[in-house]
């Protein structure tokens, strides 16, 4: 039987977050593969309301066809996808272990815990599990998914060429201000670098909503160490682009990353990346950046080397662009074609 439609089901759809962007990119890829594809959610962003359909219409529309659930948290979208009489696949957004949120945010602790506990049960309800990295795919296998694959995050080319030759004076950190990101390693490292390169700053871009105890502790540490930390909070796409343009390097010392969009964005813009050796980061960086352990002084030495060694910086920039080019919409389309072929994709 040939599939006519593969619909997507998401807890929410926001064009500004990774889940929203990937859902929209996946819809384009599916349509280019010759199937009809709608996005079902009860929580769309106002700008995308016209492009979505409510979860209540899913069962009638998708019967006998296929649905892909984007799974990041336990939500009514999961129940809607499980309840439909269709072939069911799950796109897994890696769930951070709950212990990282202990003492900082009970809300997040409960959210990720329930999502993690639900995953083995979903292995019975979904015949296909797709992850964004090999690291995340292993979670699916462990949860009991029989058929798994990789469906990479894609990156769009930057809106304008990176500014060459302009002095870059910040070490950029992009991501949620949350304990598992371990921004304190970046703070300690930049504090050490500033003893030799005093005008360098650490610019942290990301929301600290629901993580205030951690953000306060980080700020206090940065003040004690004179780390030159500037916390920007959540910024617009345009402001983020400007932050990449003035960055000498991007750092991401996370203990847990299911993929790592910021290194990919940085590489696409030719910004050298220094990332931790945990989670999917070595996989994403893929030989195009420096991969460090947990010692802040190792991070300091790596950042200082990038700042002072133009040859290394240039080579990382070149390799980064080359690496990021692999994460293209065409790769996403091919991975979906391979994963969905057994279901009768035309």
């Amino acid at each position, binding site marked *: 039987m040939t599939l006519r439609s593969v619909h997507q089901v998401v807890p929410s759809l926001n064009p500004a977050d990774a889940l929203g962007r990937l859902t929209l990119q996946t819809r384009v890829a599916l349509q280019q593969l010759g199937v009809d594809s709608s996005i079902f959610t009860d929580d769309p962003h106002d700008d995308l309301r016209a492009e979505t359909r409510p979860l209540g219409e899913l069962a009638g529309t998708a019967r006998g066809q296929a649905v892909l659930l984007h799974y990041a948290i336990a939500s009514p979208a999961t129940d809607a996808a499980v309840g439909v009489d269709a072939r069911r696949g799950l796109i897994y957004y890696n769930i951070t272990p709950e212990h990282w949120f202990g003492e900082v945010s009970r809300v997040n602790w409960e959210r990720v815990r329930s999502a993690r506990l639900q995953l083995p049960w979903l292995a019975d309800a979904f015949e296909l599990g797709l992850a964004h990295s090999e690291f995340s795919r292993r979670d699916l296998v462990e949860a009991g998914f029989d058929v798994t694959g990789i469906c990479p995050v894609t990156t769009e080319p930057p809106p304008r060429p990176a500014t060459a030759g302009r002095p870059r004076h910040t070490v950029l950190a992009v991501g949620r201000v949350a304990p598992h990101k371990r921004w304190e390693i970046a703070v300690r490292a930049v504090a050490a670098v500033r003893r030799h390169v005093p005008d360098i700053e650490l610019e942290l871009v990301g929301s600290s909503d629901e993580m205030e105890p951690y953000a306060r502790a980080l700020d206090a540490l940065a003040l004690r160490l004179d780390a030159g930390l500037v916390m920007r909070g959540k910024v617009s796409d345009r402001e983020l682009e400007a932050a990449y343009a003035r960055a000498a390097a991007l750092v991401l010392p996370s203990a847990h990353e299911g993929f790592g969009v910021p290194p990919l964005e940085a590489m696409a813009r030719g910004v050298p990346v220094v990332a931790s050796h*945990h989670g999917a980061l070595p996989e994403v960086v893929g030989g195009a950046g420096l991969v460090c352990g947990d010692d802040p002084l190792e991070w300091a030495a790596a950042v200082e080397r990038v700042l002072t060694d133009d040859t290394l910086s240039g080579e990382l920039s070149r390799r980064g662009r080359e690496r990021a080019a692999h994460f293209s919409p065409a790769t996403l389309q091919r991975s979906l074609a391979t994963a969905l072929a057994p279901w009768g994709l035309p």
Partner: protein
Amino acid sequence: MTEADEPAAELAAVDERSADLDLDAILAEIRAAAADKRRSGTYPPEFLALLEEPLAIDPDPTFVAGPAWQEAVRSADARVDLQLDSTRPLVGSLVVFTKRLVRRALRWYLPPVIDQVNAHHRAVVEVLAEHNRQIADLQRRLLHGGGGGDGQSSEPDQRA
């Protein structure tokens, strides 16, 4: 297990053989430089000690006690200056007058009792807060192997 990840092959790491720079060698140099700076006194001992200090996170008080914690703190103080009003038509002003009279008549008695109750409530909240802190601290030690909240990761080293 069946895998459906043929495209993963095209996401393999960039080919470093074509490049002039050996990143593994550079990383080894970086680690050696870090170790050398730690040993050689590049950084003052007090700065290195600061680097080692665990992140001092003031725990989310609701983590141990639950969402009711905020209400427990908010309502710990009973009030004696409740607004005196009445929604009854015609007799409303008489009702308010009577309430005011009763309150004045009991002023010698009620506020000291309520002060005692409030003192007890505050002490109970403080004891609970201390328990919250200690339980959160025990959880942190349990989960991070005795270190601080920013301690060792549970994730495997992916370079292996």
